[in-house]
């Protein structure tokens, strides 16, 4: 049974199964077809960030563009940090997910500009981070002065207390800092504001 959609059904039943590719079964567009951007986005919505698997690459705000260029699906991805070791893994996972969903030859492009900011984390993404035990970024990304400015209050994602303190500017991955709660005494990651 082919999924319903805007795409014409492929004559699956008439072909020997050994000749079939994923696209024939799924009814999704092949190279040359103009595809549905929302359908692609739905596929990417299921691709988790490898280091923070509770949020998808879409929720993280690193998928910057999805477009069809000369019949080829092009997905533009921006790295969170210049040296983020997950960047290549993320691009590979996106490629694999799209191929598995029936887009045979997607091009994954790396785009630096405009630079990623935690302001692009979606609301749903922030909520998932908190539920996972990672405090989402507080406030908007902007420059802070070097001397005499207090750190923002980062509520504990576990008990909600605002009596927290920073242990280190850096945490388990490039995108996180390490905090601890003075009430429930749990250490936690803070998705730092960038």
């Amino acid at each position, binding site marked *: 049974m082919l999924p319903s959609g805007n795409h014409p059904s492929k004559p699956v039943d008439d072909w020997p199964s050994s000749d079939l590719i994923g696209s024939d079964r799924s009814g999704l567009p092949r190279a040359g077809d103009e595809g549905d951007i929302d359908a692609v986005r739905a596929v990417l919505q299921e691709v988790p960030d490898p280091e923070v698997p509770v949020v998808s690459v879409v929720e993280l705000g690193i998928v910057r563009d999805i477009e069809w260029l000369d019949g080829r699906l092009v997905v533009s991805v921006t790295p969170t940090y210049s*040296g983020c070791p997950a960047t290549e893994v993320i691009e590979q996972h996106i490629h694999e997910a799209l191929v598995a969903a029936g887009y045979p030859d997607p091009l994954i492009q790396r785009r630096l500009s405009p630079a990623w900011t935690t302001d692009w984390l979606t609301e749903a993404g922030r909520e998932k981070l908190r539920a996972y035990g990672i405090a989402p970024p507080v406030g908007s990304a902007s420059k802070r002065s070097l001397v005499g400015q207090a750190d923002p209050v980062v509520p504990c994602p576990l008990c909600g207390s605002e009596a927290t303190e920073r242990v280190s*500017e850096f945490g388990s991955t*490039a995108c996180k800092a390490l905090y601890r709660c003075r009430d429930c005494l749990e250490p936690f990651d803070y998705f730092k504001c960038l």
Partner: protein
Amino acid sequence: MHNVAQKTQTPLIAYLLRLGDSALVLGQRSAQLCGKAPALEEEMALMNVGLDLFGQARNWLTYAAELEGEGHDADHLAFRRDAQDFRNLLIVEQPNGDFADTMGRQFLFDAWHVHLLDGLTQSSDPRIAEVAAKSLKEATYHLRRSSEWVMRLGDGTEESHTRMQRALDNLWRFTGELTQFDEIDQAMFEAGIAPDPEILATRWKATVEEVLEEATLVRPSYDTWMYTGGKVGHHTEHLGFLLAEMQYLPRTYPDATVW
């Protein structure tokens, strides 16, 4: 052996090597502390800073390799050049020493790096502007951490103050390169590619003075004798040892395609 110095190098390529090599060498110095940092949190911080710098180095060196047009990539520039072909600042190749040396070096560099990258975001070269915009966010974060450490150590115990002052006095002779500029810096400024080197020097001094005052440290004189030459490939003896360690594996297995 590919020798960049023997080829005709445009001022832009030379300038990109300065940016990339400084990030790369300081990243490698940070990485050398893996497993040796004074506390777990500092271990993570040093590795994260190093990682950011490696990413920035790759972005700069990739662009330099493309402009060179020799069919090389960033890895080739990082691992197949000798010390005299490196264009990094002398301060970044100085040894890790104690924690005051490490953080003092990081702070003096960060204070310069942030203002440089800030200026480069306005570059007439869009590729440079976008790499700078990305790097600036990271460098701003680095500067906050390194300046906090300088203040904490400087305004800390008698021992930490003594060591921080000693580190500062020791590193100061390598800061001339942060405020002096040569014909390549000047050419980049005139082409609208890089910021005004005199304004950069003024801003670096302002940041350094603000933090050192807060840290109760005595700022050495700007007029003292300074080592220079890193930007044209004349390095201190420390760089060769650093490169020997960093480049050993790719040079031993030059035909490897998978690491």
